[in-house]
């Protein structure tokens, strides 16, 4: 077992990759990224000084114990799962994937669900054609670090025309603060396919972990012509951990992505969720909620970039801010020249529950084409006194009235989470965070 180290380089990346017996192309690919990781600059999210965060963390390769049966997973994980078997489930524990299940029915249809490490061998062509093409290895220091270090991970391929009714579930879990926990989720939805993917990322590191866990994750979704992908995600790590997550979707003609995201991490958070509407008639719908507690700092950015004619995007972010938490919420709608009849809408709403909390909503429209529609709305405010009065006038106490309004504020996203178990889990997290 290697020890955590903060020095990172081309050699370290290659050595790690070789030690895991990765194919030669991947060793070289990681080596290159390792080089960039030592030379590139950090990203510069608006008003969030991430250079002060502990981001120069490599961690150690600490694979979880692979299991053959769901029941043999760590209890913390099984507690999150429904009792009956689901059609498709994949679990990462610390640095590796420890369990994968895909029903025979889905296998027979040609659906692939494996760890990304496995896919790099078994589906080299598909992986190489897509991996970090939406989120470039050399975008910045964190993307390069991610490329050099990603482990475990998920590869989902849905063949042309295949419609999967039941959601595909992924659990990404860390309980070792010294582990390298850098999952990459790659979803390729071929033409006219439909799939719902539900990912739950969480940690249990205990009171005083020996290291800062850096969850430096990435999600890439490729929706081919006419494909439709619903991607739901709930993130909830310990306050001592840092959550860096870049999500990207590239949409071909008439393809659709729906992002349903709960950013409920307790510590510092840097997330960036971007839909690239490349194809004509493609659509993107992003719904994101967050609750800021303690003294955590969050940078939450949602983007839509329109290239396709008549492409449409909608982004909604709602955040509740408590204690001394800070959130910088950016919505960026970009309509490129030539994307005629595109329509980009966005709304950011922040509910402030404490005078020491801070929530900035920054709606940005960048329009390079005339024949388009675009709109934004942003608000930052306290619990509406008129609403509290209305509820109280029916005998509901002030405390309960505020609780109803605050939970209600987040409900438009909570109620959209496609898996009941994950939705209930989310509600429990909200009860605790809002408590």
């Amino acid at each position, binding site marked *: 077992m290697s020890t955590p180290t903060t020095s990172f380089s081309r050699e370290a990346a290659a050595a790690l990759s070789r030690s895991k017996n990765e194919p030669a192309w991947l060793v070289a690919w990681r080596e290159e990224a390792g080089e960039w990781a030592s030379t590139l600059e950090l990203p510069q999210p608006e008003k969030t000084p991430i250079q002060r965060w502990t981001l120069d963390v490599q961690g150690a390769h600490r694979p979880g114990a692979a299991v053959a049966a769901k029941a043999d997973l760590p209890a913390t994980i099984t507690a999150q799962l429904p009792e009956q078997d689901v059609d498709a489930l994949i679990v990462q524990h610390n640095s590796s994937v420890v369990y994968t299940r895909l029903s025979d029915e889905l296998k027979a249809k040609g659906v692939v669900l494996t760890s990304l490490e496995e896919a790099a061998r078994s589906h080299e062509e598909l992986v190489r054609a897509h991996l970090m093409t939406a989120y470039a290895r050399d975008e910045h220091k964190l993307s390069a670090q991610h490329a050099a270090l990603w482990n475990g991970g998920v590869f989902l391929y849905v063949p042309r025309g295949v419609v999967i009714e039941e959601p595909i579930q992924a659990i990404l879990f860390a309980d070792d603060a010294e582990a390298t926990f850098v999952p990459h989720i790659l979803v390729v939805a071929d033409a006219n396919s439909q799939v719902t993917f539900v990912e739950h990322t969480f940690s249990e590191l205990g009171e005083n972990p020996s290291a800062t866990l850096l969850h430096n994750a990435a999600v890439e979704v490729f929706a081919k012509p006419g494909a439709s992908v619903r991607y739901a995600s709930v993130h909830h790590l310990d306050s001592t951990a840092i959550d860096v997550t870049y999500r990207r979707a590239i949409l071909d003609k008439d393809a659709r992505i729906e992002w349903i995201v709960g950013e409920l991490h307790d510590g510092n958070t840097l997330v960036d969720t971007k839909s690239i509407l490349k194809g004509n008639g493609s659509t993107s719908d992003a719904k994101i909620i967050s609750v800021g507690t303690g003294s955590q700092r969050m940078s939450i950015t949602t983007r839509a970039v329109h290239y396709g004619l008549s492409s449409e995007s909608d982004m909604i972010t709602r955040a509740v801010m408590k204690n001394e938490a800070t959130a910088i919420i950016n919505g960026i709608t970009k309509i490129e020249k030539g994307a005629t009849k595109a329509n980009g809408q966005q709304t950011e709403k922040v509910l402030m529950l404490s005078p020491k909390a801070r929530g900035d909503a920054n709606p940005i429209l960048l329009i390079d084409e005339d024949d388009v529609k675009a709109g934004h709305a942003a608000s930052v405010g306290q619990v509406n006194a*008129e609403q509290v009065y209305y*509820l109280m*006038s029916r*005998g*509901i106490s002030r405390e*309960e*009235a505020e609780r*109803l*309004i605050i*939970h209600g504020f987040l409900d438009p996203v909570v109620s959209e989470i496609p898996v009941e178990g994950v939705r209930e889990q989310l509600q429990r997290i909200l009860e605790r965070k809002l408590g």
Partner: protein
Amino acid sequence: MSSLFEIRGLRSAIEGKEILKGLDLKIDGGQVHAIMGPNGTGKSTLASSIMGHPKYEVTDGEVLLEGADVLEMGVDERALAGLFLAMQYPSEITGVTNADFLRSAINARRGEGNEISLIKFVRLMEGKMKELEMNPEFMHRYLNEGFSGGEKKRNEILQMMMLDPKLVILDEIDSGLDIDALKIVAAGVNAMRSSERSFLIITHYQRLLNYIKPDFVHVMMQGRIVKSGGPELAERLEAEGYDWVKEELGIVDETVGQA
């Protein structure tokens, strides 16, 4: 015998401007009183001040429900004591369903450990919604969000029916209602009439009073009740307007607190 509800010398201001200028009113159990008056005479201020809207500051007077001064109570306590105000402009609240809201309101009355069972609640709500000819879907819709004006008013009456208050104030419940909806709402109110419950109906038009027969009618001007009578007063107001009242009392401008 003490009244069920009594207002004594009520003065109330909004943003430092006095609107109610010493209002007195006494309502006995089972009675229906109507307050009429032109716009801007303080009718809605009266309703909001009784309920305890945070924007209104009561500067003097008493409001007694069964002898207890509700002005000493918080808004929720007033409701638990038996006050109900059907509002002219009910709030829309995203994410809180009509059912969740009403269940919380009922449970606030029943207290911890004595909550209404879900099945019993659903049956009760469905039954009342049927009486008001409301679409059952409205049970799970967010509170008042996207409701039409008429739907909001019906939803207010639904709440009244489920919360079983002692004194009901209807603030312009007839505005925005077509005649069929008005009849349904009036039937709902009439079904609730009993010797233990009283009503204070604030309205602009006498139309509503064709369906809910008041025992007393009061005219409000300049933040006070200036004239009281029986149902015939409402009919005369409908036929002749308010000018004769102003003339009789020597009032030039009936409004109050207007810029």
